[in-house]
């Protein structure tokens, strides 16, 4: 029972982890706390319904196209909305993303309606045994995809020239520019990447939580709480935070009652900020860009 609770907690946590990673990717390079991150996934989920039901696509073609559309959405938001205010302080940047959040919420409600829709892919509840504990196929699939995405991102950031350049821009954009690194392109790329991750999250989440304009609100908050565990900077810290939240809320839900579930993330963040305001994984002093 305990093993099962932990395992399915890790499964949910791995989706929070993806959200947290997307949040950190954007924050590191643009100082932007992107409130619209969840909405990229929400738009992806609605598009997924269209691609499956109206266009008759198979699951993987739908997934690929949703990810592409979300990448385009991320890039579009950066180029059209964020770039003109890119030099502003963090509060302006944050406020601008609130604007994007409301526009996407509003447009989704207007186009697709405000009521929740079922995703035409059902969550595979058939249990499978892993290390002696039972876990549903759907959770296992979500974990596998999250792990795969994590691996791809890790390879990108450590093994490829553009990935290393992205870290160089995080570190010192001025010097990166001097070396000939196209800093603006890299910034667009971070938003495209956040969009891609959102596309996956949207499709993975939709069978669990149904599709509506608000579907991602709570998950985004948990993703942010997880990101704060890494000081909004460390990927490792964000992933650890996300898995901890996933497990803790599942245990709370299982042993204390389901109405305690949502508050767990908030209790954790309050405790974290009280004792380690710099995040769980200590990060060095960072100079203001």
């Amino acid at each position: 029972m305990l093993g099962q609770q932990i395992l399915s907690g890790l499964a949910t946590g791995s989706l929070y982890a993806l959200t947290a990673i997307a949040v950190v990717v954007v924050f590191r390079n643009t100082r932007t706390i992107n409130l619209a991150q969840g909405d990229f996934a929400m738009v992806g989920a609605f598009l997924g319904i269209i691609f499956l039901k109206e266009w008759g696509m198979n699951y993987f073609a739908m997934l690929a196209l949703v990810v592409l559309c979300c990448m385009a959405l991320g890039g579009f938001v950066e180029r059209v909305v964020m770039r003109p205010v890119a030099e502003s302080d963090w509060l302006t940047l944050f406020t601008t993303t609130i604007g994007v959040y409301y526009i996407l919420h509003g447009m989704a409600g207007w186009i697709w309606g405000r009521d929740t829709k079922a995703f035409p892919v059902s969550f595979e509840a058939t249990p499978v045994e892993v290390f002696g504990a039972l876990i549903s196929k759907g959770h296992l699939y979500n974990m596998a995809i999250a792990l795969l995405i994590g691996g791809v991102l890790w390879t990108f950031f450590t093994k490829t020239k553009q990935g290393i350049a992205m870290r160089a821009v995080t570190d010192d954009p001025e010097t990166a520019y001097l070396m000939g690194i196209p800093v603006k392109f890299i910034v667009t790329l971070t938003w495209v990447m956040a969009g891609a991750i959102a596309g996956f999250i949207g499709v993975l989440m939709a069978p669990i939580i149904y599709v509506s304009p608000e579907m991602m609100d709570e998950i985004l908050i948990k993703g942010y709480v997880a990101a704060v565990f890494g000081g909004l900077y460390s990927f490792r810290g964000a992933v650890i935070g996300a898995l901890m939240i996933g497990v803790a809320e599942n245990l709370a839900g299982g042993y204390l009652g389901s109405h305690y579930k949502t508050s767990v993330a908030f209790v954790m963040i309050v405790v974290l900020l009280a004792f380690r305001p710099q995040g769980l994984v200590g990060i060095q002093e960072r100079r203001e860009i």
Partner: protein
Amino acid sequence: MSSLIVENIKANYGPITALKDTSLVVPEKAIVTLLGANGAGKSTTLKCISGVVKPVSGSITWANKEIGGQSPNSITRKGIAQVPEGRRIFKDLSVTENLEMGGYTRSDRAGIEADLEDIFELFPRLKERHKQLGGSLSGGEQQMLAIGRGLMADPQLLMLDEPSLGLAPIVVSQIFETLQKLVEERELAILLVEQNMKMALRVSSFGYVMRLGQIMISGSSEELEDNKEVYESYLGTA
């Protein structure tokens, strides 16, 4: 013929005029020094050449072509690299990754690998520490890394902004020896900005002295070394 000719450039930071009228020449395979007190405009001159700052007028000619106002990306591709003031190592990147970023504009895999080996040979300390994060290196090691990162662009002109800043005298002489070696081995020209004028003039053949955004004195290094004016009016040191 790859020589650099800067003619009458002006540059501003918003309302502040940093360069009024600056001209200088760096011939092929020469070491030229640019001296001047704090705020004279030395770094700004280098930034105009590397493309980080756009001059508002004047011309910058490299290998007989105008390059003024181009992006750092295209200027780096044309063979000019700058080692910035204060080293500016990417501190969360490993030594090797820092070097790779210096060669960002290149795509000749074999050439990049060969240069990486060359730099590790030139600075064995960097080889020993190649996996370490840039931010964990000592000041002298960081300066070596900054120079190595500049060399990774495979430049014909390397501009160095105060490479001796904050380093022990012995490390400074090592670095200047290395620069001389580089000029001979790599057919490199060097434009050197320095506060440490004695050292700088010793390794260079020609020098310029700046003040308030203008070149005030120029001459061979011997001439400048004997010129009292250089010490007194512009550097404020004896």
